[in-house]
């Protein structure tokens, strides 16, 4: 054990050699453009760089007007969900080396939400759906003053997966149903309902299930698994939706 570290891998050599990557970004500035347009940029990148690094290089070295959201830059704040080569991903979690760079990389805003500028969409409709599922603990009885509630390890594990959600909208905006019907709650709202429906401390599953039984609720899901593929947190989104459907048929979690 004590010498196990000597032969640890050095960063791969490729990481030391930069190369040119072409990004084609769908630009739109409502103050100047009638229609979105695709614009090419060549940037020098390392294989371990992220798409977010490429966008920063464009913004910082070529065109300061390129607009996108970002904050933590390591996949936990959920700011930079975008469509990269046609798939929803976080720009800060997508490494150049994981893409085919013999071809240009296409980057555009996520779909289904109003486009504001370049890679920025209006997130308010997304958060409105989140709010509608009552995403907060509604306990059956008040906890004893100054006391924690008891919850078994198994009960806690029951909803662990859906607590990972960072509300980035990658799932919802990858859903073909959501694209065609903006009224559909979308996977993220259902994931957040799931997080409470299956929490043993919560007593309002019925209320949330009723909300999701609506015609814009879980039954719109056609199980295309786009959402599960898109989730940067690895949440089994489609399974969570299926569990909510089953709970609806049972009438309880």
């Amino acid at each position: 054990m004590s010498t196990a570290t000597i032969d640890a891998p050095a960063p791969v050599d490729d990481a030391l050699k930069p190369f040119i990557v072409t990004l084609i970004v769908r630009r739109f500035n409502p103050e100047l453009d009638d229609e979105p347009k695709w614009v090419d940029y060549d940037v020098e990148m390392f294989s371990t760089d992220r798409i977010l690094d490429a966008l920063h290089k464009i913004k910082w070295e070529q065109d300061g007007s390129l607009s996108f959201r970002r904050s933590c830059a390591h996949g936990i704040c959920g700011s930079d969900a975008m469509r990269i080569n046609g798939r929803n991903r976080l720009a800060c979690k997508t490494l150049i080396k994981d893409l085919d760079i013999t071809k240009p990389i296409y980057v555009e805003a996520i779909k289904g939400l109003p486009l504001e500028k370049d890679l920025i969409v209006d997130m308010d409709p997304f958060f409105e759906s989140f709010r509608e599922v009552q995403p907060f603990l509604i306990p059956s009885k008040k906890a004893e003053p100054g006391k924690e509630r008891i919850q078994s390890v198994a009960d806690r594990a029951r909803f662990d997966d859906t607590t990972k959600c960072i509300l980035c909208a990658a799932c919802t905006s990858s859903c073909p149903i959501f694209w065609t019907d903006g009224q559909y709650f979308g996977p993220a709202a259902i994931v957040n309902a799931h997080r409470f429906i299956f929490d043993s401390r919560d007593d309002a599953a019925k209320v949330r299930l009723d909300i999701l039984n609506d015609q814009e609720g879980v039954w719109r899901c056609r199980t295309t698994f786009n959402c599960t593929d898109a989730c940067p947190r690895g949440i089994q989104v489609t399974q969570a939706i299926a569990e909510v459907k089953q709970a609806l048929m049972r009438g309880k979690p």
Partner: protein
Amino acid sequence: MTQDPSDSTIIDGVHYHQFDIVIVGAGGAGMRAAIEAGPGAKTAVISKLYPTRSHTGAAQGGMAAALANVEEDSWEWHTFDTVKGGDYLVDQDAAEILAKEAIDAVIDLENMGLPFNRTPEGKIDQRRFGGHTRDHGKAPVRRACYAADRTGHMILQTLFQNCVRLGINFFNEFYVLDVIMSEVDGVEQPAGVVAYELSTGDLHVFHSKAIIFATGGFGKIFKTTSNAHTLTGDGVGIIWRKKLPLEDMEFFQFHPTGLAGLGILLTEGARGEGAILRNASGERFMERYAPTIKDLAPRDIVARCMVKEVAEGRGAGPNKDYVYLDCTHLGAEVLETKLPDITEFARTYLGVDPVTEPVPVMPTAHYAMGGIPTNVNAEVLRDNTTVVPGLYAAGECACVSVHGSNRLGTNSLLDINVFGKRAGNNAVAYVQNAKFLPLPEDPAVFVRDMIEGVRNNPGTERISVLRKELQEEMDTKAQVFRTDESLDSVTKTITHLRDRYMNIGVQDKGRRYNTDLLEAIELGFLLDLAEVVVFSARNRKESRGGHMRDDYPDRDDENYMKHTMAYLTGDPHSSDAADHIRLDWKPVVMTRYQPMERKY
């Protein structure tokens, strides 16, 4: 997202709103304050981000509280650890409040729905963390309450969920750039804030009785940092420009385990679960430096030891410029269940699997111990003792001081909850009897001039170039080890960069989501704060906590057992910092514990 437009009026293109309490910042401290303030007073929370993007969400390992759920513990031990961990620069009355109220703070969060990990009996589970000990340093204690390695994420989500439950008014992607001060009987008091709406470029005046700053830190003065791109110290900078003091700015924490070359945080909770730091030869070097608690020594000590190992040629990798965090003996199950996020970070960003390989790590700029001085009621101070009525600060932007010269891990998630709650409660009590102060004729003039000044500046300097130079210089010369020479050098650089900043030019001249303009304004705050950090650091000719002076390697209680207070006194653009910054001292509050040599 829930702002009520009917509430506002538009005069000369400026939107006017009125709220009893305005909270600036929607991270942990801001939303914890909002949960108290919302039900008791008309409250608005203003953030330059969406609330769930705040950097509280990146905190990983845990939140300290002496619940004694898994072994004997007491708030008094926690207080002692906090004081000793801060190298005795902690105000002990504040640390006692922090440790005592920790227990309720955790229970509050559990009651609000936070999914803590549980013990086999179903109680909140607790893990070990650096500097937290049983009975005044005898052995590590399990004090950190946690939710896997996403405790901050769960706190941020839980607080946001409860803000939704309470119908708190949020103004998202509104960038606060000024506090309006009005004079009442010769005393300056806040009358509101001015914000720039990112989506439209419009200006908004929020007329209010009380203001709570909860804007987080300013780690982006450094290149290698665990901090988000957005952590540019805007709130601290606004207070500074209002000529209110900043406290202990020289004390910045470098977290030992940032992913090498990237700075992305790997929680200290990994070492709490048993991970070990090793140098190139595989030696567990912390045994040499801190024989009792080894890898669980406080962060300042571990970071220094790591840099020393590398400086003395024992670093690993092709350039011998990092050490290893070895988790391989923890087993896949512990990593996947208790440390899943950091396991994934190492895999994603370095291509290293912690289950089978040690992870390259080096210290990363992590946390500002200093900031806006407050008393234990979260009231902002204009000098060592005088309160600014109606102005509050909580969280990383504030300096109470519960962290002294070095914060213990898990005490920041605690700080935001304890002092965020206090700020909210005290603001509610304050506004019951306070009046709205009259606004000046054109309250938005300062912000309008600032924004148009940047937008229309015909300069040629690029923001990204200046920012990179600042960050690289700060990394080289004001990081874990500092000297008079290195600090003098970085001072000159900052002065030069501030001159060049006058000649910046932005390419985006538009109004909607002008993030080019946003970054320019943020850089202005970074330059101001870096100058205060370095100026304060030059003046403290001793080594204490996060401030390590190679040329003054010892702690000097006789001359420096006191807080630094920095004041902006002259033209901030004068070339010599000494012409516009005055430094003063503030006594440390000592109650139970006399300073001792700090050994672990």
